[in-house]
């Protein structure tokens, strides 16, 4: 989570309001997002089992489903 002020408190509040589950990591300065070339939110990053980035963006459910399906169906490289 990219959050610049009162990061932990804001993130907790946001996760509660929107019922966000799973692991949440704090990227307070946005430095990690910048290293990945992420320019805004929300952004999804799909990573394969070799640690290689396979898609960036894909926030519409249909787009994400298609990107995941491509990875599952495609050849392992």
């Amino acid at each position, binding site marked *: *989570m990219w959050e610049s002020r009162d990061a932990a408190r804001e993130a907790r509040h946001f996760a509660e309001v929107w019922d966000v589950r799973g692991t949440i990591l704090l990227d307070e300065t946005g430095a990690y997002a910048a290293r990945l070339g992420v320019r805004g939110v929300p952004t999804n990053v799909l990573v394969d089992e070799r640690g290689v980035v396979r898609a960036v963006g894909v926030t519409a459910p249909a787009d994400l489903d298609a990107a995941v399906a491509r990875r599952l169906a495609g050849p392992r490289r």
Partner: protein
Amino acid sequence: MGPVESAAAEDGAGGLDRVHRVLAQPRVGMGPEAVAVDVRRRRAFVACSRSDAVTAVDLVRMTPVWRAGVGREPIPIVFDAPTGRLFTADARSDIVSVLDAGTGEPLARIAVGAYPAGLGYHPRLRRIFSGDTAAATITVVDADRLAPIGVIPAGLGAGSIAIDRRRDRGYCANFMAASLTVFDPVTLRPLDRIPVGRGPCKVVADPVADRLYVANSLENTVLWLSLADGRVGGSFPVERAPVGLAVSRDGRHVYVCNRGAGTVSVLDVRAGAESHRIRVGYGPGDCVIDPATGRLLVSNAGSGTLTIVDRPWLPGPEAPAGHPAVGRLLPGFALPDLRTGRIRTTREWAEKKYVINFFASW
């Protein structure tokens, strides 16, 4: 091309400068959201949600001139030219703050419904409309007496409000309900509810084309409806998370802030398609056109800046195809876990397939 666009398109050297240019990106504060312009004084005003403040920017020097504190988390902002006042809706204080636009001096704090996240403005009726997201209402404020005068029921997630001044019709975007509440700004009665796409975040009325534009932030589209009959006319695909909108004075171009992509999509209304994209700062939240110059002012919630774009209707450098991270190893991270405080690293997810979702509350 409108008069402002015609005059500005020709460059000083006698040739034609056929590209848009980013002139400046002054820092304005944390989490800047909506922008308003005082044409006469040549100033822009930016509601900075994470600074709990409004920043005034001199549009000639392109530098901030003052900052004034308001309530918690101001998101929308309206400039009332007849009185020289600014109105912000401060989402976490449940108030509308009123400032003197010349000095930033606070003038009033008006109680509205829970989590006000949008404002509408009808100068002739002298009314301000607050979209109260958590209360699902529209609180109506007298712009001269600075007092509430009524409440209109709306939908869950009520926020951005546009006014069709020709017909005296108001439109409130209901984010969670995926609808628009149509209301009468004179009698304060709800008139209709129109279903739109998921996550409608911003509505803008264009009196020239007689259209209402709706940014469907969860569908990556901008929908348009006829103001004459309320019917959906079509939609434009844009980039990720369109949350901000502005229309050129001649109605020819619509500018869309794609919060997820760090870009502005420029829609050519006549062609019925996106003509180009402008790369701005991180997480652009909203934008406005400076009527005097035709320049586009974009607030960047992630960067804390205001991008000033000259001749935004013209294309610029082509964006690189694809994302630079695709096909590369994910950079290693070591970040604290929100719930445990423990530092988590890339190594824990090694040999797994997974999705990282970057999000923020701004």
